[in-house]
């Protein structure tokens, strides 16, 4: 199997800046060039090792602040690790911030073109995939309207549709799927399964295990930036539920609430 992502002992230090840190030359001069550095730092990620190959789907799970987003940003090349080694092989498509590549004043159509160009694809590929993207995102009625008139859900659908149709070899999704409605989520997972069969590796960060675990082959459980478990997703799910009984998945909470009422 061809590896897509290989991470060895990854560590990321984030400098925590206090409010007094100088953000302008004016502040810096007044404070005598003192508050320039970071007051302290802490390791957001430490000793993270895993690998994932073609046709696999990795679920990144953990509580808020466990380091999921930082890890996804490292994989996307947006941050560099302070420790360890990272190899990423293949073209990356990502939905970290749904509005990242979109401009409010431009129409959905124009924004899709820009998103394709950022992904390194030419206008021909874009034209070929365009109908499918419109179809997938269910935005046929307003694709020529400015994106600022879209609801957040529509923006999310368009962003996901673009990412899933740029022919990615590595797909990074940070929480975005958790915000989509169930039907659209299912549609995305169907498309992801198809991409996997074409050799794509998917890495999906989520705090909601119930949604993501059944779709993933493997799962990486993070707790305060350390890997608690990296294993087949079912095994990780068992560890996770034994680790924190108070944290339940969304669907479990809803079920519990229904029972009470």
């Amino acid at each position, binding site marked *: 199997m*061809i*590896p897509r992502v*290989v991470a*060895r*002992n990854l560590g990321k230090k*984030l*400098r925590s800046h206090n409010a007094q840190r*100088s*953000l*302008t*030359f*004016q502040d*810096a001069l007044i404070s005598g060039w003192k508050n320039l550095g970071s007051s302290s730092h802490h390791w957001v990620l430490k000793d993270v*090792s895993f690998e994932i190959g073609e046709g696999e789907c990795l679920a990144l799970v953990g509580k808020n602040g466990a380091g999921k987003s930082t890890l996804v*940003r*490292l994989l*996307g*090349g*947006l*941050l*560099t*690790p*302070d*420790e*360890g*080694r*990272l*190899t*990423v*092989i*293949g*073209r*990356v*498509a*990502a939905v*970290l*911030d749904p*509005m*990242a*590549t979109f*401009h409010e*004043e*431009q129409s959905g159509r*124009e924004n899709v*073109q*820009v998103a394709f*160009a*950022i*992904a*390194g*694809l*030419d*206008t021909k590929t874009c034209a070929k995939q365009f109908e499918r993207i419109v179809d997938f995102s269910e935005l046929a009625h307003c694709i020529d309207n400015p994106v600022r008139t879209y609801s957040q859900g529509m923006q999310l659908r368009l962003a996901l549709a673009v990412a899933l149709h740029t022919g990615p070899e590595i797909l*990074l999704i940070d929480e975005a799927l958790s915000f989509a409605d169930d039907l659209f989520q299912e549609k995305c997972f169907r498309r992801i399964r198809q991409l996997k069969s074409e050799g794509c590796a998917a890495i999906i960060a989520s705090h909601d295990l119930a949604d993501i675990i059944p779709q993933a082959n493997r799962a990486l459980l993070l707790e305060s930036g350390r890997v608690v478990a990296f294993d087949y997703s079912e095994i990780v799910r068992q560890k996770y539920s034994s680790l924190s009984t108070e944290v339940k998945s969304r669907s479990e909470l809803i079920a519990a609430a229904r029972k009470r009422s």
Partner: protein
Amino acid sequence: MPITELETPNAQYLKTGHLAGDPVLWRVTSVDPTRSWRQVFSLLALLVDRELTATYKRSVLGTAWALITPLLQLFVISFTFHSVLGTHIEGYASFTFLGLMVWNWFQSSLIDATGCVVKNHRLVNQPGLQREILPAVSISTQLIHFVMCLPLLLILMNYADGISVGPTIVWLPLLIVLQFLFTLGLSYPLAALNVRFRDTKHILGIVLNLGLFLTPVFYSAATFPQHWLFLECNPLTGLLASYRGVILYGQAPNFSSLALITALTFAGLPLGALMYKIRSMRFLEDL
């Protein structure tokens, strides 16, 4: 494609894991297919189009502002210097208008490019985007304004000053490319610095204000017989003289006067780009 490329730089650490003491830049190996120049240019074109849409979408006169602004500037400056102070230069209107076009392109590019990373903080959050393209987008957008003013300049030359364009105009693209690269070399460090210190942009505004007066935009460097240091050391002096020679006076550019700006470009561009590259690893933390 993938596995063979994996062999060379990474085979060692895939086996051994962590290697201490190596530069941060080498810790990540990305075998993302590189973008061809064509892809970079098409992205540049799309982002420039986006920038123009954003600037003019909701203004009544739209792109006409690109022409109105320098014309009003020209009016103010010719009134002050030509009518009140009595500067005597042949064909003052086209002389100053060309100077203003070049200066405005330089100044607006630099100010825009300095703020480009902060302005596009969401775009910077997207994997796959070459962040090096952002300052180039600012400069290219302003280049469109420069080019839009060219017909206006020709009209001014013809009707106000009776000058016609000679064949030396073929040198114009070379000058434009040179100014583009020179501005880009300055933009990279400024854009990176502005992410860390947000008042870089304000300081730059003041410096550029001074720069306008230290550059022969509405006066001629030739009127100063003594060699003034600020004119000699100003890379734009030679560039402006070449622009004027090429368009107004039908002279081929004087390459010795372009030597300074060329040298600065060749030294500054790689250095600035490297600094931007290194600082860009920290953009997300400082934004």
